[in-house]
């Protein structure tokens, strides 16, 4: 046999062997396709799927950048005991130290218990063994360094599953307006969370999950197949300090008068920015909580605050001048079979239109309206429509109550409709709609839409900015404005809200006390709504505010007494904080006995404040950024305050804002009880600082 032939035979043998190999592959392929078909088809359908990973939801911030709503990640620690490269040696060598460190970190079970469970899971070959639920981010960081865990998914079978929980750091404050999003069939979206859900929620990521025999789903690989994209942050217009004041003042009044519910809204006049919005209602246990957004959602008969619309109508149509006389006689008048009464015991006789407004005379206002519009009631309703009072504000937040002002051709229109509407009955408005109207008067006739959100940001970068939206450039003529504003001021100067008068800043506004109509019983005596709507300072309006309290106790139900104090507390607070508003020469402080008391805090800011107020201070501290204060006869002494990142600092006597800033910067989570200055802190100063720890501050003023 020739060499050539020999080689060729060998090549042919090899070739045939390769053909056999190919046939084996094809055979197996067809075997899988035809014989094992059902098995793999089923496996393909059931065993694997893409699970969505929720992105980090964006935060909601107050106007000054404090967190109103934040998603806190929690982790579930699991182990795949049969991971490909997770060897017996690795497990045996490290299980003791892992158990000890787990026990030390969570401090809940003895390490032998941890070990026993781990060993049991390992023996069982558990592919998704639950080590611990609800692990915080800082704990997770430590866990990553633990024996076995540090080897990762492949060699250590480590699985960290993230879950997010939404928390409101300020708890009840503006809770309803911040809102929430509830998923599911009966889910609902509320407040800013709901209105800006699309921005906040981000883009879902995907992770490949594999079904394992015990029915659990387990990630296939170490990382996500498609990374989620975080949601945008939403910066609201809410001023959390003011919100705090509003919420507390409202709570105090509600408790005092055992009212059913109430709401307060504070708005910036020029821009319509809502600085505070508090809604409290009594729940079944008799506790007041933010359970419904009354300010936005509850449309009721406003009562006397609506007289502003009637007065404006009379003036704008040139029918009556403020000095024109009206006879209110003995304080009652009868329309059809309905008797209207003025509050107070005796009739005022002949008074001016302005006086009738200031004293909130039902008789006076309704009489003037009836006299002037009886023949053409549609003129009056048209005027109200032109003011936009019959239209929703078009808020982004869902659930705005619809206003109701019926037209003369309505089947419900009756003979007494005109006088009733003139004093705020047979019409419906939400507190926010009433406030928007009052704000327009304060804003020189320009009606702006209430603004809840200033900016949408992504990791600090501004994505969108919201400016004021003008609903009506001029709701009435300048002359009318100039006539009506003194009337609103008169309400506080000498009218129904005299109790709000003060010598520091002028307030303009209108009280409202209305009986609440019950669907079954008509107007029942004893169910009232007390309100006050207004703005201040009336000579240069900065803020408008409305307070509405529903069903206060029977003995005291007048708007000025129930709603007024809340208004006053809020305006006081704004006035004290806003130096621009204070006129030179006004001195709040009583007789100057030595240097005034000062909060501890950030040195540079304290110094500039003391300088501005011309208060003498001495400082021998040049290095420390944070100082403690002590007031002596002559001056405020600034002393060094030791802030290091190793120990919990002393924040006693600091304002909440400085204290929170300082503590959160050091990585602590603060929880504030009350307001004012810090009275005590837990853990105390000097404790070794552990990032992520919670610190509770008890403030000088606490409720209850």
């Amino acid at each position, binding site marked *: 046999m020739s*060499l050539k032939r020999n080689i060729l035979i060998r090549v042919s043998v090899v*070739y045939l062997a*390769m053909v056999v190999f190919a046939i084996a592959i094809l055979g197996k392929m067809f075997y899988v396709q035809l014989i094992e078909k059902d098995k*793999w088809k089923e*496996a393909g359908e059931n065993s694997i799927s*893409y699970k969505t990973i929720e992105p980090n939801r964006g935060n909601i911030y107050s106007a000054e950048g404090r967190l109103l709503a934040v998603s806190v990640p929690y982790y579930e620690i699991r182990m795949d005991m049969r991971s*490909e490269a997770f060897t017996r040696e690795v497990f045996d060598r490290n299980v003791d130290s892992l158990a000890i460190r787990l026990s030390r970190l969570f401090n809940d079970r003895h390490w032998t218990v941890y070990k026993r469970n781990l060993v049991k899971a390992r023996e069982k070959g558990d592919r998704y063994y639950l080590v611990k639920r609800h692990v915080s981010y800082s704990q997770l960081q430590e866990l990553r360094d633990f024996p076995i865990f540090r080897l990762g998914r492949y060699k250590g079978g480590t699985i960290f599953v993230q879950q997010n929980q939404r928390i409101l750091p300020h708890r009840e404050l503006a809770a309803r307006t911040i809102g929430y999003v509830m998923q599911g069939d009966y889910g609902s979206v509320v407040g800013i969370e709901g209105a800006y859900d699309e921005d906040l929620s981000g883009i879902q990521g995907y992770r490949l999950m594999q079904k394992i025999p015990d029915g659990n789903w387990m990630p296939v690989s170490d990382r996500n197949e498609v990374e989620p994209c975080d949601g945008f942050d939403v910066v609201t217009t809410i001023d959390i300090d003011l919100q705090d004041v509003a919420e507390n003042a409202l709570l105090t009044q509600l408790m005092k008068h055992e009212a059913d519910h109430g709401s307060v809204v504070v708005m910036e006049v020029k821009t319509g920015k809502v600085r505070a919005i508090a809604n409290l209602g009594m729940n079944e246990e008799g506790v007041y909580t933010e359970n419904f957004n009354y300010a936005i959602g509850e449309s009721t008969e406003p009562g006397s605050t609506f007289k502003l619309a009637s007065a404006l109508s009379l003036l704008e149509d040139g029918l009556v001048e403020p000095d024109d006389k009206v006879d209110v006689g003995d304080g009652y008048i009868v329309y059809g079979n309905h008797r209207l009464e003025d509050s107070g015991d005796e009739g005022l006789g002949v008074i001016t239109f302005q006086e009738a407004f200031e004293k909130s005379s039902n008789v006076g206002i309704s009489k003037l309206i009836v006299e002037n519009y009886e023949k053409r009631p549609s003129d009056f309703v048209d005027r109200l429509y032109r003011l936009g009072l019959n239209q929703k504000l078009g808020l982004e937040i869902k659930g705005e109550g619809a206003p109701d002002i019926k037209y003369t051709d309505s089947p419900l229109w009756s003979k007494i409709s005109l006088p009733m509407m003139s004093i705020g009955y047979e019409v419906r408005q939400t507190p926010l709609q009433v406030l928007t109207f009052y704000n327009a008067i304060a804003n020189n006739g320009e009606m702006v839409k209430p603004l809840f959100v200033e900016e949408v940001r992504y990791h600090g970068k501004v994505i969108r900015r919201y400016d004021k939206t003008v609903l009506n450039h001029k709701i009435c003529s300048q002359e009318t404005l100039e006539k009506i504003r003194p009337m609103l001021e008169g309400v506080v100067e000498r009218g129904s809200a005299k109790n709000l008068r003060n010598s520091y800043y002028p307030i303009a506004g209108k009280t409202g006390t209305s009986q609440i109509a019950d669907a079954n019983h008509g107007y029942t005596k004893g169910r009232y709504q007390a309100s006050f709507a207004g703005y201040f300072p009336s000579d240069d309006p900065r803020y408008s505010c409305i307070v509405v309290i529903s069903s206060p106790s029977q003995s005291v139900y007048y708007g000025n007494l129930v709603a007024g104090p809340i208004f006053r507390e809020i305006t006081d607070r704004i006035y004290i904080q806003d130096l621009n508003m204070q006129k030179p020469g006004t001195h709040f402080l009583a007789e100057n006995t030595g240097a005034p008391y000062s909060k501890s805090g950030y040195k540079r800011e304290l110094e500039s404040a003391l300088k501005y107020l011309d208060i003498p201070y001495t400082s021998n501290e040049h290095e420390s950024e944070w100082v403690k204060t002590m007031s002596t006869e002559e001056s405020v002494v600034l002393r060094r305050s030791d802030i290091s990142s190793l120990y919990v600092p002393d924040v006693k006597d600091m304002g909440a804002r400085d204290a929170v800033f300082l503590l959160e910067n050091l990585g602590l989570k603060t929880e504030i009880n009350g307001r004012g200055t810090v009275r005590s802190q837990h853990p105390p100063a000097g404790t070794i600082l552990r990032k992520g720890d919670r610190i509770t501050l008890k403030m000088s003023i606490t409720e209850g």
Partner: protein
Amino acid sequence: MNALKYIRGDRVIWTVIIILSVVSLLSVYSSTGSLAYTKVSGDTFYYLFRQFKYIILGLTVIILFQMIPYRIFSKLSIPFLLGAIVLLVITLIKGQDINEANRWLAIPGTSNTFQPSEFAKFALIMYLARVLGNNQNNLQDFKGVFLKLIGAISLVCILILPSNLSTAAIVFTVSFILLFIGRIPTRYLALFVGTGIAGLALFLLLSTAMSREGRITTWKNRIERYVTGKGDNFQADQAKVAIVRGGILPNGPGTSTQRMLLPHPYSDFIFAIIIEEYGSIIGGLLLIFMYLWLLFRTGLIVRRTKSTFGAFLAFGLSLGLVFQAFVNMGVAVGLLPVTGQTLPLVSMGGSSMLFTSMALGMILSISWGVEKEMAAQADDEAAEKENSEQVAAEQVAGQDLMEESVHEGDK
């Protein structure tokens, strides 16, 4: 048509190369969907264009290599093998850790990596072909021939083994087959196999004793799972799901869903994806046929060539490619345990494409050399037989005569 003059060698092999390149483009585009989303933010054309570039590069390399007279490869084999061994040593010492297998080496100055073991495989085949081709007359020489062969094979296998068991196994098998074709005496072959098994056993023993983690654990688990059929066979199971989904007839390009689930659908499991999209007749049967055809055409070169070196080199290289392809396919259908072998010419990847193209270029160079020899021979024969009456049977007789002349030449 001018460009076609550069296309030398067997046109059928060229056809196979072109068909496989088209398959490569289609299936890489399909199977990189999820990779495109995780790596290059959804630019699904990124990998398509990259693969297209690799294919153009590959074709260029093929054309360059086929222009080189194949006898030069014999001389090149020694520096190539030495270079490959150096690279393997470097890789072993400081390889880049990709999927915990130290089998990749970064190319200095670029962001690219390549597997020196791929290069070593071809360099070793070149060297074996050289030694076998030069020593057909003294194959019984144990020291002078067999030790050289077994030394080179052992060195390469031992260097590849720690990081890549399956490539080492393929190199060992292909070498064994080449020795068999090269007429190494049976007793030496037995010794060779014995040495191989003993070496592997020693290595496993040593590494278990040293308790090295990582790759060895992976192999152990993979083989264990393959044998017992128990445990987490995620990749293999998902590949079977893909094959079942594919069915007999094509579903069309881009219809694969398993590409989202299978790890490395563009390399290790591309065969499963091809079946899922093109069915078992076109995607499976025809694709396997392409590789068998390639091997068959190389067999024809062996039959025609006068040079034993050319015969061994062509068949060795071709066998290396086809055997690797079948291992890849065998893994995809579940015939073999999971390994990281790519499907030559089809899988995504630059370095595998580069070395495969070098091999194909060499095969085509030999094929062209054979054609030239045949043409010259035919001229000579024709001149010689001009007076003869058998001119009509020239073609048929030419082959027979050529074989005889080779026979004589070898003697």
